[in-house]
């Protein structure tokens, strides 16, 4: 009469099965290790190819020193511009619902997915397209006295076009994670929307701001395609480090190309370390 306890059936099958977890860890670990190994080997090969003497000799070239200076300058300008736009746009997209918001949201991703050369070409066309006889580049060069195409501002603009999209995405996620209720309470306490943003939202977002700026800077450092098309590759004028690698490679000077590549690897590693240090949780 009495029903057997529910565990009885399961208990009858009680025996040790020799199912090892080893294949699982072997496959997962093997796939991961393969990729990590590829990255390590890439850097190791660069390091083995060059020597300290070749490295210092390459970095002593005035063209390359000028390229380092221009890289630091343009990346920083592009990163600062991206930070400002990223903070503003990230906040607007995170907090407000407005008509066409989905369209704006989609448009931001275009610079990320667009082939780099196409982006450069589009910039070139934008600046040289006659609109009723008026050309943006001519106006900037002749009336404002600030030529862009094939000059250093073109480098900044090419870098900014891509790095800004990453800054906006980062800031959007940052503000999404901040409780908007605190800004609302601030408004009942006497703040305008602007004051609530500056006194309540922005201080909470500082990690995101640092992360967005750093990501934008790193993206700008790696930019090449749009710069080549829109700013050209003129030595001592629009040459940044990514251009240097291309130029040295094209004249068969592999040693200098590798030396500059290593310098860029070092810069990227420093940026990554900094990101890890500041934005733990946000960027992972």
């Amino acid at each position, binding site marked *: 009469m009495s029903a057997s306890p529910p565990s009885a059936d399961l208990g009858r099958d009680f025996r040790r099965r020799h199912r090892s977890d080893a294949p699982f860890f072997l496959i997962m670990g093997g796939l991961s290790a393969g990729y990590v190994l590829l990255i390590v080997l890439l850097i190791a090969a660069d390091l083995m190819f060059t020597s300290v003497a070749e490295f210092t000799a390459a970095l002593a070239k005035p063209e390359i020193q000028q390229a380092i200076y221009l890289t630091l300058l343009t990346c920083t300008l592009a990163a600062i511009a991206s930070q400002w736009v990223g903070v503003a746009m990230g906040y607007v997209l995170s907090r407000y619902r407005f008509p066409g918001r989905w369209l704006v949201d989609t448009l931001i991703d275009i610079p990320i997915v667009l082939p780099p050369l196409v982006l450069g070409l589009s910039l070139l066309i934008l600046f040289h397209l006659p609109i009723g006889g008026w050309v943006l580049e001519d106006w900037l060069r002749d009336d404002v006295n600030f030529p862009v195409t094939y000059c250093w501002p073109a480098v900044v603009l090419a870098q900014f076009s891509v790095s800004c999209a990453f800054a906006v995405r980062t800031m959007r996620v940052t503000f999404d994670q901040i*409780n908007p209720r605190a800004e609302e*309470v601030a*408004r*009942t*306490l006497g703040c305008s929307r602007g004051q609530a943003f500056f006194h309540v939202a922005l201080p*909470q977002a500082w990690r995101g701001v640092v992360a967005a700026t750093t990501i934008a800077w790193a993206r700008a450092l790696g930019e090449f395609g749009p710069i080549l098309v829109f700013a050209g590759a003129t030595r001592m004028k629009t040459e940044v480090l990514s251009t240097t690698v291309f130029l040295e490679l094209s004249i068969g000077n592999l040693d200098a190309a590798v030396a500059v590549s290593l310098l860029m690897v070092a810069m990227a590693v420093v940026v990554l370390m900094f990101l890890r240090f500041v934005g733990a949780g946000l960027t992972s």
Partner: protein
Amino acid sequence: MIELRDIAINAGEFSLSGISFRVETGHFAVLMGRTGRGKTTLLEVICGLRMPSSGSVLIHGKDVTRWSPADRQIGYVPQDLALFPMTNVAGHLEFALVRRRLPRRQINERVSELAQLLGIEHLLKRSVKGLSGGEAQRVAIGRALSFKPHVLLLDEPLSALDDATRNDMQTLLRTVKENTGVTTLHVTHNRAEADVLADTLLTLNDGVVSSQDRTKVE
């Protein structure tokens, strides 16, 4: 005095219409109603964070329906408190006063007065991150009272507290009421809370608010 006249709200997931009630100056009103019936939305309409689709909100007889939240002089304590994570306890108490550009001496006086009233003097230098539920609650109430608002709005302030802390906070709310005389609207779904605190009992049921003045009943 808080007065709602024929307020209609369209909030997407639900709508309310024809909401009218009145809380006399100095009264402690408790608004009761089941969860999800729009009590929080009504508070947002009163403090100006949400625009009603029609009707008017009057504070001390003045129509403030189109005013910004900053101008309404309403202290608001939301259910999740929404303390400012980057600001310490003293910073919360002085936030509204700094925005009003009061002299430093006056701000300091007000902060210590509030801290004493709420029993949080020992917490002033602390970050809000490590506060207990009851302590955080006191800070949020202090922040809302700091600028001597016309009206205090409390959104289920006691719902997340354990029984002992809840009793302490009820006592505190009565002390605040006696000391400041601020007109208060307290939202809850807890009958016992309403019995202890309310001068005016408002019940939101099927989109209609019925009002009972308990100062006259007793």
